[in-house]
């Protein structure tokens, strides 16, 4: 495996909360909005993108690096406006945008409501839909030990992401991880359904839809639903051997699929 190196870090203000932005690489910009649990540390997937592109990774409210920004967001409109604000302030307006899981839902919302903000779109198993005939798993009603296996095909992958690094604050670190689950619950409780399906037809950007072969959280049938709802050209690809957060399980393959689509 190639080595992981640190990005440049800056902060921007979102509704009064300091929000972390990572930046690394050269070339045309590409944004990434993280999935369930957020990114408490830099991951190899982002390095793969940074080899070809300037990758910009703003945190979402309440996710690691997003402080307690979720606490002032009460309605879906509040959330979507915060996402737009983040895209604008991170300098990502008009760039290519990738979103995974929770972040995928926000990437899709921004692309639908403000089509000029997104050039090309990649969605990795986005939240926002629910099908009673093929229900998503409930991520908030799980034994603590079962979460990792729900998020990634190899539970170790998610556990390592969430493992406390040496020197971290041993009280604040676990609280920050719980906060990430709370932020997701704040917008997606209880079913994950924000009626995103109604807005998908507004998306003008060509869209790549990626799904982990072993996604135990969101059914793969949702990929087809999403592809059929988007009026712009779409492509669906399944990442072999990956779970819900495909970019963590299979960073090379996931990054390659995205870079190929956005060539």
């Amino acid at each position, binding site marked *: 495996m190639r080595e992981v190196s640190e990005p440049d870090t800056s902060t921007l203000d979102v509704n009064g909360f300091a929000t972390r932005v990572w930046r690394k690489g050269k070339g045309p910009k590409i944004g990434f909005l993280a999935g369930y649990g957020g990114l408490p540390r830099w991951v190899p997937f982002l390095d793969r993108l940074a080899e070809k592109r300037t990758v910009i990774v703003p945190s979402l409210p309440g996710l690691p690096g997003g402080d307690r920004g979720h606490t002032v967001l009460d309605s879906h409109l509040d959330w979507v406006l915060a996402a737009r604000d983040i895209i604008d302030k991170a300098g990502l307006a008009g760039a290519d945008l990738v979103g995974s899981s929770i972040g995928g839902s926000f990437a899709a919302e921004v692309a639908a409501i403000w089509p000029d903000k997104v050039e090309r779109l990649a969605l990795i198993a986005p939240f926002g839909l629910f099908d009673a005939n093929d229900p998503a798993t409930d991520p908030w009603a799980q034994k603590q030990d079962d979460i990792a296996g729900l998020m990634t095909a190899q539970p170790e992958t998610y556990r390592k992401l969430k493992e406390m690094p040496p020197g971290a604050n041993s009280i604040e670190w676990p609280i920050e991880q719980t*906060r990430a689950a*709370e932020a997701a619950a704040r917008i997606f409780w209880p079913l994950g359904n924000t009626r995103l399906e109604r807005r998908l037809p507004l998306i003008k950007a060509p869209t790549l839809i990626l799904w982990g072969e072993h996604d135990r959280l969101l059914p793969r049938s949702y990929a087809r639903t999403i592809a059929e709802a988007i009026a712009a050209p779409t492509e669906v690809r399944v990442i072999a051997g990956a779970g819900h957060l495909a970019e963590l399980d299979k960073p090379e393959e996931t990054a390659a699929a995205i870079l190929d689509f956005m060539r």
Partner: protein
Amino acid sequence: MKFLWFHLMPYRELPDDFKDKHPSVWVDIHSSLFDPKRAHHMYNEFLDELEHAAACGFDAICCNEHHSNGYGLMPSPNLIASALARRTTNTAICVLGNSLALYNPPTRVAEEFAMIDCISGGRLIAGFPVGTPMDTTYAYGTNPSQLRDRYYEAHDLVLRAWTEKETFAFDGRFNQQRYVNIWPRPIQQPHPPIWIPGAGSVETWRWAAEMDYVFCYLSYYGYKMAQNVMKGFWEEMARLGKDRNPYRAGFAQVVGVAESRSQALDLYTDAAEYFYGRCLHVDPRFAAPPGYVTEATQRAGIESQVKMAAQGKTPSGPSTNAASATKMQSLARDMKGIVDNGYVVVGSPHEVVEQLRELATTLNVGQLMLMMQFGNLSSDATKHNARLFAETVMPKLKPLFSEWENRWWPQPMGTSERATPPAFTPTAAAAE
């Protein structure tokens, strides 16, 4: 000292293999286990038992709210309270309570509590729990990240609805109503006493103190396990400059009294094992919806674990800070463990008096809630328990804390002013 007789209304006929065959008594308990025709008898027996407790002379009878729950058949405690209001005369009626964030609009609670207060002639104690994760977030689908803010806002709205004389508009973060003007209005002025059931959250203690409400620690694990929580509560009261009036605090205790200790064990073992073995069998998946526990309380919990570890201590029994469903996973299920861990107070009248005296003085609690029907305890045994307690235990403990004023007790209409519902004679009614 006040004695409140508390009924959970557990389904009495969960199968013997319930714990092995079913993942949870709560949230997704299977509908096939519920027989409505059996429940008809259970509800009527439960109401009989509460009325019997009132007749025995307990100061209050209590009911509470649970949803999708095999040990709590009261999704609406207000229905039970209104039935009790008609069939009792002087006993306080303690609804502990209505989970405010679940009502839309929350003024529904202001209205229904006002109805009960009117029907009962001002005997209502109004309980406002946040509600358990199982009830509020899973069974009722309320967002755990907004639950507490919704709860506090609903409280403010209910209080205003009770006290404001003019129709007003409420422009809240979660609730907007153009015309708030409840009819009926409560008899008790400015409003019925408000009690807050809760656990070991510092924020709840502070808020209850600031509002001058009673804080009730509703634990199923007995007074020995509750020492740390109540110690923390009184230390916080001291920091806030509040006195140690024991009537600021309530505590719930499972109690079984009989003529002798061995008779008590004969009488209550099966029911206690049913309660701790089947009723408190909750799937740990429902333990911790994120956001339900505030960050301040999480922080306090982690800090105390770190402190204990540094002192080389290992926690004994369920941790105070653990989520309720997590605690329930590590419970003793057999009578020896149940008794040894002090979950239940059982014994002869003398033994029960001594244990409850210790409970009251060590926890400094003046509002004692007694769970004397528990698990599948039969109606006859339940009534015997209540009667014997009222005759042999209550008189010994009643004088405790007489030096303090109980400012949190209902102020009903004078007896001579009150309506006198005709005596209820079912056979005569059927013949008409």
